[in-house]
């Protein structure tokens, strides 16, 4: 080199010994980037995907074109960590157009993209297990107590109704008991009166014999006459006493009849009380019938929303205000997020009510710093086919209070027949059919507000019988539920994401409650009337029997007393007694009174 000056020749001023190796290194790096980027990207997608899901992630190919800013992924499969022979998600092809200029600004902007052949919950040929997963214990839903309480209430009501309708209250009725007592008493009284009549007759005959003997030999028998007269007097008094008792028999029958009437009235009151039912609460019944599926699905949706929300960007202002240590960095453009998906076309297949449905739609304005965007993130999916579905989700996290809106409308969803309610107590079988479904949900902060509307025309509902079911009640319920021809419900949502609350407004509950209540009350009324008729019939039978017994007894006793009267009169003539009682007069007494 010597003392030479810098030669103007541009080639000579370059220190080739330094530059050439570095140029070679640069070329090698560029070549590596060109040919090694695809495998590197493949590795990064698979490894980060597996770290995130805990299950296998498979990617058939990843191709990039740096000049065009294009990234293409083919054959992406993400295994489901909870079901290792199924895929969580599968995509046939994903093509993303990346803004390369934004990459130099340290930002990833997807200008446009298309994901096609997207499917969820598909089968896979081999296990997607990466590691042994500990299954989390799922706690009870916050909505369970509400539904359980309503179900318990309605189930108890029906159980109680069935039990009461099945019950036979005969052993608890007073009328048969009183009638039985009266019958026994009449038997005893009749036997006693007969015995006294027979004894009176025997004593009269003995007195007659003694009087005749005394009259045959007055000198010897004169001493016995006073004693015989005294005995005769006693017999006469006994005869009068018996006559009075027989005379009072109709009065006794009247008293007994009153007793039976009182018992019958008490029985009527008892039967009515036993078969008295309040009406079922329609709202409560709606909770029973529809609460369980709604609660299950709502809790599941809330859990999913909470999961999705936790993964959405926090939108911290710290991320936005990042400054250099020396000087001030001036942005000559509006602040823009580090990650921004401007538009991503989606073509996916997802099961709707068991039918694979083809959706098309788009995902727009997704970002890690939504505060910097003018529009909220939006997901739109539309299915046109056998089951038309429209889904729109708007996530606005540009303010301090995040807000999500969800709109879902499905029409003509085929529904399989299903059983709702508690099969041990109250369950209904709904016939298969098609339904319209509409969800409007707004999440502001942690608060939920919205509604779910459901309409199933041509719906048949039948009660489910089990071994303990009351057949009569089931028949009545079948008849009552046969009048329901459509099922409509609107669920009003409130509360928070962690503790959602809902109220179901549906005519179903009221229709069912009216049907069931009317059926049960009708059954109770019929049973009550039948029991009262039975009690009245038994009482009348007893009364007739009682009167017959009285008449028979009265005639029998009067006949015997007539004989006794003649005997006593004869004795009185012999013994000189003045007391007389006309037998025909006795026979005419009370026969009319004893009749009812």
């Amino acid at each position, binding site marked *: *080199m010597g*003392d*030479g*000056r*810098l030669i103007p020749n541009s080639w*000579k*001023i*370059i*220190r080739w010994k*330094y*530059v050439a190796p*570095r140029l070679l290194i640069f070329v090698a790096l560029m070549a590596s980037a060109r040919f090694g980027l695809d495998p590197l990207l493949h590795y990064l997608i698979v490894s980060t995907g597996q770290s995130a899901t805990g299950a296998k992630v498979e990617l058939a190919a990843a191709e990039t074109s740096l000049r065009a800013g294009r990234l293409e992924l083919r054959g992406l499969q993400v295994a489901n960590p909870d079901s290792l022979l199924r895929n969580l998600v599968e995509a046939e092809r994903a093509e993303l157009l990346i803004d390369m*200029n934004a990459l*130099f*600004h*340290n930002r990833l902007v997807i200008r446009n993209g298309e994901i096609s052949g997207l499917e969820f919950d598909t089968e896979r040929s081999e296990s997607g297990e990466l590691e042994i997963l500990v299954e989390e214990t799922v706690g009870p839903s916050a909505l369970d107590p509400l539904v359980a309480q309503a179900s318990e209430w309605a189930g108890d009501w029906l159980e109680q109704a069935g039990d009461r309708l099945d019950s036979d209250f005969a052993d608890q009725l007073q009328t048969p008991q009183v009638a039985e007592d009266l019958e026994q008493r009449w038997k005893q009284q009749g036997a006693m009166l007969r015995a006294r009549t027979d004894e009176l007759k025997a004593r009269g005959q003995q007195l007659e014999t003694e009087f005749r003997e005394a009259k045959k030999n007055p000198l010897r028998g004169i001493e016995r006459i006073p004693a015989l007269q005294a005995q005769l007097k006693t017999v006469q008094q006994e005869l009068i006493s018996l006559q009075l008792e027989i005379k009072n028999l109709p009065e006794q029958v009247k008293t007994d009849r009153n007793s039976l009437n009182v018992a019958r009235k008490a029985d009527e009151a008892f039967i009515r009380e036993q078969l008295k039912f309040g009406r079922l609460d329609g709202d409560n019944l709606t909770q029973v019938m529809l609460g369980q599926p709604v609660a299950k699905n709502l809790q599941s949706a809330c859990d999913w929303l909470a999961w999705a929300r936790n993964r959405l960007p926090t939108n911290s202002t710290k991320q936005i205000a990042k400054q*250099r240590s*020396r*000087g*001030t*960095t*001036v*942005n*000559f*453009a509006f602040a823009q997020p580090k990650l921004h998906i401007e538009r991503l076309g989606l073509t996916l297949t997802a099961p709707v009510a068991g039918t694979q449905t083809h959706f098309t739609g788009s995902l727009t304005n997704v970002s890690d710093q939504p505060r910097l965007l003018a529009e909220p993130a939006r997901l739109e999916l539309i299915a046109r086919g056998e089951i038309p579905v429209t889904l729109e989700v708007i996530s606005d996290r540009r303010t301090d209070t995040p807000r999500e809106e969800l709109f879902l409308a499905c029409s003509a969803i085929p529904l399989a027949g299903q059983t709702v309610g508690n099969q041990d107590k109250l369950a209904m079988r709904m016939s298969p059919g098609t339904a319209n479904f509409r969800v409007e949900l707004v999440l502001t902060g942690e608060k939920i507000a919205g509604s779910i509307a459901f309409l199933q025309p041509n719906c048949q509902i039948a009660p489910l019988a089990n071994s303990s079911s009351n057949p009569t009640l089931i028949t009545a319920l079948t008849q009552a539920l046969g009048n329901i021809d459509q099922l409509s419900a609107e669920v009003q949502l409130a509360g928070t994401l962690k503790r959602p609350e809902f109220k179901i407004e549906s005519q179903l509950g009221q229709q069912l409650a009216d049907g069931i209540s009317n059926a049960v009350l009708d059954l109770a009324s019929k049973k009550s009337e039948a029991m009262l008729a039975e009690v009245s019939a038994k009482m009348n039978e007893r009364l007739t029997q009682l009167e017959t017994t009285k008449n028979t007894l009265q005639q029998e006793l009067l006949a015997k007393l007539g004989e006794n009267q003649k005997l006593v009169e004869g004795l009185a003539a012999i013994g000189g007694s003045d007391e007389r009682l006309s037998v025909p007069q006795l026979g005419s007494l009370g026969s009319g009174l004893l009749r009812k």
Partner: protein
Amino acid sequence: MLSLALRPLRQFAQALLANDSPRQVAWGFTLGMMIGLVPKGNLTAIVLGMILLGLRTNKPVGLVGICLFTYLGLFVDGFAHSLGSAVLVWEPIRGFHETLFAAAISPLLGWNNTVVVGQLLIGLYLAYPTYWLMHRFAVKVQRPLSTWLLRYKAVRWLRGAEVGTQWGMEG
């Protein structure tokens, strides 16, 4: 290995012993001055460094310039910030800045940072005076200094090692 370890010393000795021309020394120092002033961590500093190393300039003097002006540059950061701010917000060239920014040139080069722009402008402003002064200094000082230093055995040995290295006799 020993050759690699002694390389800075050898190059420094070569610079002082007038193996490089005064223009090379002056260019090296000027580029070192600019690199020293500009905040690091942007493409501007890297490009200037590559120019220093890729052109036939005196690298040891350039390194001295970098060290010296990195230290001195901190004292003029305030002025550089004011100057850079004035340039960046100057309305007539705002469109130019926006174009550079949109094309991702200014963010990579750091030309949207007030201190980078200010220090770069200061460096450019001082470039010619620095070059002229350093050239004059090299012309006057390099030869007498060389003569004086060659009286020392260690310096002669270092110089011999550098020549040997250039001839491919590295140990």
